[in-house]
């Protein structure tokens, strides 16, 4: 995918403009001039203005995915920074946060700066999340101050829980120096050891060892208590159980500085999807039960969960086209997230459009303190474009990701991302027409 340079003056016509922060939801036009929004609503295009008729597509402030795995450096067969950026643009994300479990891991300033530099050739911004501990081993803290100054927006040993409560305590304390959240992958590993899917009736039927919900609940509770004690800022990655949600909500009510994210697959799927042993349904935390998904939808609606994040985790066919218990954990997310939330969230009345845009745009940026784009005059252009009525089928031959491990392959969805506008550029799966 190539990005397109936009003309100096471009009028986007006949769009549905949505910005919850401005209480804006109306059909109209948007005038963009050299990377700045200069007019919102009704634009009378003068002679030298090119226009692009969007035929009712939605334009909203750019979506930000707080949780993706770009696999570079180290596993460029599964994904590269560039292919991940293209996948993000095709999915309607103007920015992503890249997790540090690469090879080498993002535990030194040089690697963090290198990722940012590699990402600078394409309009999707990549914000590195640095490791909490050196080598993600859970033992010694990384040089958080230097990492933060080098561009890391948060700290996480994602994929591993910081096993030592002492180390996690010190990480939360030390992070007060850098004003960035510590992201927890809450999984108590002795309880989840050997597990392949959510422990319950389905794991019993399928004969697969279980990843019990208490593994997540116990880890979540410990980290919430540490955050409360230290005053550090905690963010819970991919919350998947009703127990962890209840603990998160109670902690927020007590004033603990804690936020949470949920993935589209935990909202839309349950452990029933594992029947047939499709390895695309294998991820951590695992797909849970209907009751958990229903609690997640409520938490997304209420704002207890402030961000939808995909946990986009590409894996090669060598890692996935194997028996279930030999397969790697993880599923693609970037290219299906917006359609899933629009179709299965807004379409089913579980969210309204404002809430959806907030969880994709405002919520995740607030967690890491990034400036929030807006649909107003004078604002820099950072916009997501998706069409609410376009029907499509998820086709594994058409992913921009280098991998195909999506549990939604074959699904028919309504609502489809077109791409993103960023500065004076367009990138997406649709070619601009002006």
């Amino acid at each position, binding site marked *: 995918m190539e990005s397109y340079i936009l003309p100096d003056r471009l009028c986007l016509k006949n769009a549905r403009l949505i910005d919850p922060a401005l209480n804006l939801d109306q059909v109209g036009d948007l005038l963009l001039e050299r990377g700045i929004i200069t007019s919102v609503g009704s634009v009378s295009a003068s002679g030298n203005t090119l226009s692009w008729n969007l035929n009712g597509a939605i334009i909203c402030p750019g979506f930000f995915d707080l949780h993706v795995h770009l696999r570079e450096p180290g596993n460029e067969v599964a994904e590269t920074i560039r292919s991940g950026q293209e996948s993000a643009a095709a999915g309607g994300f103007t920015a992503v946060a890249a997790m540090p479990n690469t090879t080498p891991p993002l535990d030194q300033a040089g690697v963090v700066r290198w990722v940012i530099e590699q990402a600078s050739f394409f309009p999707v911004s990549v914000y590195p999340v640095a490791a909490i501990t050196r080598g993600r081993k859970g033992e010694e803290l990384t040089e958080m101050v230097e990492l933060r100054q080098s561009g890391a927006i948060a700290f996480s040993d994602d994929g591993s829980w910081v096993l030592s409560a002492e180390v996690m305590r010190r990480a939360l304390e030390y992070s007060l120096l850098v004003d960035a959240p510590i992201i927890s992958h809450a999984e108590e590993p002795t309880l989840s050891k050997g597990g392949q899917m959510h422990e319950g*009736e389905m*794991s*019993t*039927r399928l*004969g*697969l060892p279980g990843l019990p919900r208490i593994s997540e609940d116990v880890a979540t509770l410990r980290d919430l208590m540490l955050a409360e004690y230290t005053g550090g800022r905690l963010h819970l990655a991919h919350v998947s159980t009703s127990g962890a949600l209840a603990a998160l909500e109670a902690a927020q009510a007590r004033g603990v500085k804690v936020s949470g994210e949920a993935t589209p697959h935990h909202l839309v799927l349950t452990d029933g999807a594992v029947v*047939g042993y499709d390895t695309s349904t294998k991820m951590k935390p695992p797909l849970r039960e209907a009751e958990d998904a229903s609690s997640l939808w409520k938490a997304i609606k209420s704002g207890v969960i402030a961000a939808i994040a995909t946990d986009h985790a590409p894996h090669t066919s060598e890692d996935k*086209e*194997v*028996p279930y218990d030999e397969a790697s954990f993880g599923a693609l997310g970037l290219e299906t997230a917006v359609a899933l939330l629009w179709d299965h969230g807004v379409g089913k009345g579980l969210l309204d459009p404002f809430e959806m845009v907030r969880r994709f745009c405002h919520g995740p940026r607030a967690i890491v303190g990034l400036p929030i784009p807006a649909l107003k005059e004078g604002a820099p252009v950072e916009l997501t474009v998706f069409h609410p009525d376009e029907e499509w089928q998820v086709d594994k031959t058409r992913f921009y990701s280098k991998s195909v491990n999506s549990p939604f392959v074959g699904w028919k969805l309504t609502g489809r991302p077109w791409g993103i506008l960023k500065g004076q550029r367009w990138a997406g799966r649709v070619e601009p027409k002006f």
Partner: protein
Amino acid sequence: MDHERKNRPLTSRHLLGLEGLAAEEIKTILDASEAMKEILDRPIKKVPTLRGVTVVNLFFEASTRTRISFELAEKRLSADLVNFTKIGSSVSKGETLLDTARNIEAMRVEVVVIRHQSPGAPGFLADRLHSVVINAGDGAHEHPTQALLDMLTLRQKFGDLKGLRVAILGDISHSRVAMSNVYGLKAMGAEVMLCGPPTLMPRNIDALGVKVSYKVDEAIAWADALNVLRLQLERQQSALLPSLREYALTFGITLQRLGKAKRTPVILHPGPINRGVEIESAVADSDASVILDQVTNGVAVRMAVLVLLSAPEVLM
């Protein structure tokens, strides 16, 4: 094998498990097994039914009993057979199951019998091969021919499975034998109780419509038949059991324990037996035991499955 696939006696081309099989299909297999058993009683125990059919026995996991039983069944039916075991094959050199499958496909094998440690591995092959796939045990998922031979043995003993009370004892959470028996027995209208220590009972097992008990005396008093599972001796290493000794004292089936019940249930065991652990020798060798009948029935059941899946016209 260019025969018509219409009017097959079994819905599926493969035997991946008993979950979802209708009572009528199970009855078809058990009836066919009786016909096969008659062959096994002849002086010359061989028929030409599967002449020209090639069967590969893919055993990725150690197995003596099941493998020999399948081999015998194949030989009795005059099939050509190839054995492929993990030791000494290219699997130990790192070949993936996918490549193994592609190679089998290229060799034009009609039937694949697979034993694999991964749940779902037989289905993985079935999705990728034109061959008929028979599950000979996949992890803790299913072991359909074992449950079928257990049911055949019970039917011979009791005449009918409907309303029969069968208790399955032991390490339920790691047992494909228990799972296949639950599906098969429930389909045939039997009642099932699962009994074992709570650490070896899988989560939400009651959702399968079975009774659950942690008390072996309760199971003995309730059951018409006890299916005593083999205890994997390594279970005590993972905090699941304190010791084999305590397991034997708490769950071992002894004559003394059986003596407390009003009537002695029929005793089954899928083998191989750990004498003195889950069952004492005096019980295994007693009149109540049908353990050796199970072994004989195993060959008959596997013959029946092979014929029904690869040459069903013979039986129709």
